[in-house]
């Protein structure tokens, strides 16, 4: 028999129910409340009755009641399972769930709200767990995404400063940090520097969390006095610390008076506000509360540090590689540019130009006066222009730099100086263990941490010093060499109607140094002429001076000895005796002017080219032996002899004329033979130029070139002595005209030559001899190739014309009639050399 069920009292059922009961008017006024609710909250019935329920809510629930619960009751008549937070009498909170129904009262009476209140502590705990787990999962997912984004962004950056943005973004969005700062380790100073903040330095010895994190190689958590937090994660690469990331979490919310639009960022989905401390599972809201960090967040910060460290390491490597590439490229460009710049001063000026702005904002070279560091600089180059003419380097600095420069220490250190608040580096310019002066650099990259570093600058200064010194030496050499060469190559040839000589010299295209090529023409006797073309090994002053000695030697030996073989033998002796010009090659020939007998010899030199009348070329391949001073084989000097017909042309040259890169030497000779044949008709005066042009299109070759062409004139000259009387002119003219006619010279050419020659003779009679008919005027005329050459000479004293009208009328005529005109008014008389290229044809 079952026990009878206990009697249930409705009142007790209501009051002692396991849930709170509240009966409210629609406006929230409490009409009735059960004991359970009173017990749970600690309020007395009389404290509640007649008061609005809002007063007993926590503020959130108060608003929630108005914005949600009340409207829902009006719209759907009931609300289920809504969270609510009540204030207890002791100030603590009651977490609850409420169900509420709106019941229309009997007609005429007010509607009522019945609310049941369940203690939801456990349920809420469970909910909070759920919520926290979900949030944590979301946060972690978000963080992993943000971290991945950071890694991707870090992988794309190329400069250290660019790492800040991705890290700050992670700080903002993954950790909701108030501020995120990136500090870089400055190993030189054993300190941390915040990126993007000027002149803040934190010693590694400091107790600041940043310094501690850098020392510990792990995340350091630091509670601020104001309740805020700082978490610092080291940026590591291979367990080396490169810097730290500092996440700051302030306690205070943003100033609520700020308009929302000005808030620094919008919240991500489900992300809490950036700084607001949140606490779950605590009944008492105690603010401010420090933000809690789970191990997962700490680990994430570690990862951020490691990823950032690796990114930094990569950037450093990249920057180092870029810098090295730039440096070596710059130095290579510098050397090349300087080498291409002629002269010492030019090179110094080019140097300062090249340094600005890539290396410095301002560059200045001061060159010492006779190595006296305390003296005024002898010479200065600077760029860009600077008021006051540049920096004055203090004497003590100069002394230090000079001492460092002379010590020979490598690399030469740069000295940092400050003048008038501006910083500059001073470097010694030195070469061959001597100080040339100083290089001063200021502004631009020098003051920053850009491409330049001390090693680079030292390298630069050493290269610059050497280049300048080279220029100085080369300039000195070149000046002498050019002078020598000019004197060697000047065409001061003996004038003899029986032959004519033209020469050409072309320096190599790509060098400024003089070469050792030379040519020479001289009379070996009254009846013979010697011609020589030679090539001294090497370039520059050494070659030029050797060339000068050899040239003089050939001249002297040729007049003292008989024949080319003998000359070469003595040249060998000369070369070995004076130790100059070894391995010089030369071609030497002597032409007997009356007989046409040609004797020649080649010492390691390309063969002379003979072009016989009609344009038939042939190389003279006999009498070949080795270069001067060469070993025994070359000592067997020989010579060859042949008779050349009048009207022949002999061409001597150096290999620069026939050598072309990638071409066989014989091919070059063939080209020369063809070109010489093709230019057979070319008057000798133009031959040297045209032949050179034909052989070396573009103006020059890779080597110097020297060419000598001799025409052995094909007819005996017209030679006469005209008495110094004007009345003798008519007869003279007739004789010359007749001779020219015999030589086949056309009417106009004949007339022009006769008129010009007669004018020259008349000048000599009038101005040279003053009509002294005891004297004579010598006339020598010659036809060679297609041209008529005339020499008119007197032995009188030149007297200027008496009137302006007379002056120059004769010469004006000559100038128009003849293609070439040379007047040599020497102390022993006047010689007029004239030449007219035959136009050909009669009248």
């Amino acid at each position: 028999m079952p026990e009878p069920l206990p009697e249930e009292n409705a009142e007790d059922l209501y009051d002692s129910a396991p849930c709170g009961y509240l009966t409210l008017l629609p406006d929230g006024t409490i009409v009735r409340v059960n004991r359970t609710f009173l017990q749970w909250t600690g309020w007395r019935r009389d404290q509640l009755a007649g008061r609005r329920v809002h007063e007993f809510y926590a503020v959130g629930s108060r608003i929630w009641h108005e914005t949600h619960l009340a409207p829902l009751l009006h719209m759907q008549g009931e609300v289920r399972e809504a969270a609510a937070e009540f204030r207890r009498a002791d100030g603590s909170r009651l977490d609850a769930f409420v169900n509420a129904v709106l019941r229309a009262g009997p007609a005429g009476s007010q509607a009522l709200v019945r609310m049941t209140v369940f203690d939801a502590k456990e349920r809420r705990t469970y909910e909070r767990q759920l919520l926290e787990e979900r949030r944590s999962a979301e946060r972690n997912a978000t963080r992993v995404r943000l971290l991945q984004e950071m890694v991707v962004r870090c992988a794309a950056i190329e400069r250290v400063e660019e790492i800040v943005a991705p890290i700050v973004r992670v700080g903002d969005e993954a950790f909701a940090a108030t501020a995120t700062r990136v500090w870089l380790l400055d190993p030189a100073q054993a300190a941390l520097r915040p990126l993007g903040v000027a002149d803040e330095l934190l010693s590694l010895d400091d107790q600041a969390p940043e310094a501690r994190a850098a020392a510990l190689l792990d995340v350091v958590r630091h509670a601020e006095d104001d309740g805020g937090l700082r978490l610092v994660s080291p940026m590591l690469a291979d367990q080396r610390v490169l810097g730290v990331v500092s996440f700051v979490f302030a306690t205070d919310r943003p100033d609520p008076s700020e308009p929302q639009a000005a808030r620094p960022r919008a919240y991500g989905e489900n992300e809490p506000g950036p700084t607001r401390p949140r606490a779950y599972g605590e009944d008492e809201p105690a603010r401010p509360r420090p933000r809690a960090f789970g191990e997962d967040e700490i680990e994430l910060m570690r990862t951020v540090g490691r990823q950032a460290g690796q990114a930094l390491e990569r950037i450093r490597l990249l920057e180092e590689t870029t810098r090295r590439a730039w440096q070596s490229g710059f130095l290579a460009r510098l050397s090349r540019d300087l080498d291409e710049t002629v002269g010492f001063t030019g090179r110094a000026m080019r140097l300062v130009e090249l340094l600005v702005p890539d290396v410095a904002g301002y560059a200045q070279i001061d060159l010492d006066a006779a190595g006296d560091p305390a003296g005024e600089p002898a010479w200065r180059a600077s760029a860009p222009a600077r008021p006051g003419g540049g920096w004055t380097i203090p004497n003590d600095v100069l002394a230090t730099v000079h001492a460092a420069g002379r010590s020979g220490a490598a690399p030469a250190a740069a000295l940092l100086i400050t003048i008038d608040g501006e910083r500059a580096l001073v470097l010694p310019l030195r070469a061959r263990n001597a100080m040339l002066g100083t290089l001063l650099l200021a502004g631009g990259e020098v003051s920053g941490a850009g491409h330049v570093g001390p090693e680079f600058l030292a390298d630069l200064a050493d290269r610059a010093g050497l280049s300048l010194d080279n220029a100085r030496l080369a300039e000195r050499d070149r000046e002498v060499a050019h002078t020598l060469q000019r004197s060697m190559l000047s065409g001061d040839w003996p004038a003899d109607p029986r032959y004519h000589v033209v020469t050409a010299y072309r320096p190599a295209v790509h060098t400024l140094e003089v070469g050792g090529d030379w040519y020479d023409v001289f009379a070996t006797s009254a009846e013979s002429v010697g011609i020589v073309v030679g090539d001294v090994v090497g370039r520059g002053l050494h070659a030029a001076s050797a060339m000068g000695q050899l040239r003089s030697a050939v001249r002297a030996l040729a007049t003292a000895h008989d024949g080319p073989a003998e000359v070469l033998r003595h040249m060998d002796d000369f070369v070995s005796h004076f130790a100059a010009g070894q391995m010089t090659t030369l071609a030497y020939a002597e032409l007997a002017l009356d007989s046409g007998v040609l004797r020649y010899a080649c010492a390691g030199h390309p063969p002379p080219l003979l072009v016989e009348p009609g344009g038939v070329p042939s190389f003279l391949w006999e009498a070949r032996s080795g270069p001067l001073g060469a070993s025994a084989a070359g000592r067997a000097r020989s010579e060859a002899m042949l008779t050349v017909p009048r009207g022949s042309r002999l061409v001597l040259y150096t290999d620069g004329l026939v050598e072309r890169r990638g071409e066989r030497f014989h091919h070059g000779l063939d080209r020369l033979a063809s070109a010489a044949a093709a230019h057979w008709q070319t008057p000798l005066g133009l031959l040297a130029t045209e032949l050179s042009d034909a052989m070396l299109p573009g103006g020059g070759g890779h080597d110097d070139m020297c060419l000598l062409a001799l025409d052995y004139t094909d007819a005996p000259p017209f030679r006469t002595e005209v008495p110094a009387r004007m009345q003798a002119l008519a007869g003279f003219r007739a004789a010359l005209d007749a001779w020219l006619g015999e030589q086949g010279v056309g009417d106009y050419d004949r007339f022009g030559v006769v008129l010009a020659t007669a004018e020259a003779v008349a000048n000599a009679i009038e101005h040279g001899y003053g009509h002294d008919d005891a004297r004579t005027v010598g006339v020598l005329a010659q036809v060679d190739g297609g041209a008529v050459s005339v020499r008119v000479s007197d032995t009188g004293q030149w007297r200027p014309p008496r009137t302006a009208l007379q002056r120059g009328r004769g010469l004006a005529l000559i100038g128009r009639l003849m293609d070439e005109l040379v007047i040599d008014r020497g102390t022993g008389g006047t010689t007029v050399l004239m030449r007219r290229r035959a136009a050909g044809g009669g009248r």
Partner: protein
Amino acid sequence: MSAVQRNNIRLLGPEDAPAIVFAHGFGCDQNMWRFVAPRFADDHRVVLFDHVGAGNSDLGAYDAQRYASLGAYADDLLEILRELDLRGVVFVGHSVAAMIGLLAANAEPDRFAKLVLVGPSPRYIDDHDYYGGFSAGEIDELLDSLDSNYLGWSAAMAPVIMGNADRPELGEELSNSFCRTDPAIARQFAEVTFRSDNRADLGKVSVPTLILQCSEDVIAPREVGAYCNANIPGSTLIVLHATGHCPNLSAPDETFAAIDGFLRTG
């Protein structure tokens, strides 16, 4: 996407009648006007809509960055008016929507004939002499409670947001059929709402304005209504007998009468 679709616009009444636009405030959706708005449909073109993020609006259009200020909601409102080609409208805004409408009317006064502000507050937080009804700390607490009331407020969304497909009953038993809101959006809307300060905008109003103030309203106390009345040029204040923050639900007759009376005045 058009504003009509985005904001779940519902239209009642004759097309060519003068327009009256109802906007809901924080916490619910256009249903807030279900007892009032239809009564104007006889002689008005009634426009109802949900703010982006609320009700049946297109949640995909919600962009936390964009909706970080009330200005964005005002822009949406103007967009709706432009799209529907409405001018000279009567705007009725409840709670925070009162300020949204006020901002819109200040931006384009031509489109507005009259403003009706129901339970408006230009600033909820006390500030020196200004009484807004809440301390800064209380608003913090409100936002905290939004977090803790998360599930309760968003019951309909619970199965989705909890990600607990294996416990569907959790979502099931907590659902409420109205006032569905994505909790994250609600959270931000609350923050935008309760941290807003539109006091400076009150003086710029150039449209006839009616302020409906409830007698007992913990969200918009009478001091705030008086402040609005004092600072909006030429505004009319009616203190309703209704209590609470939602007279449109708790006292629809009185609310209708007050609005209707205002519409009939010049």
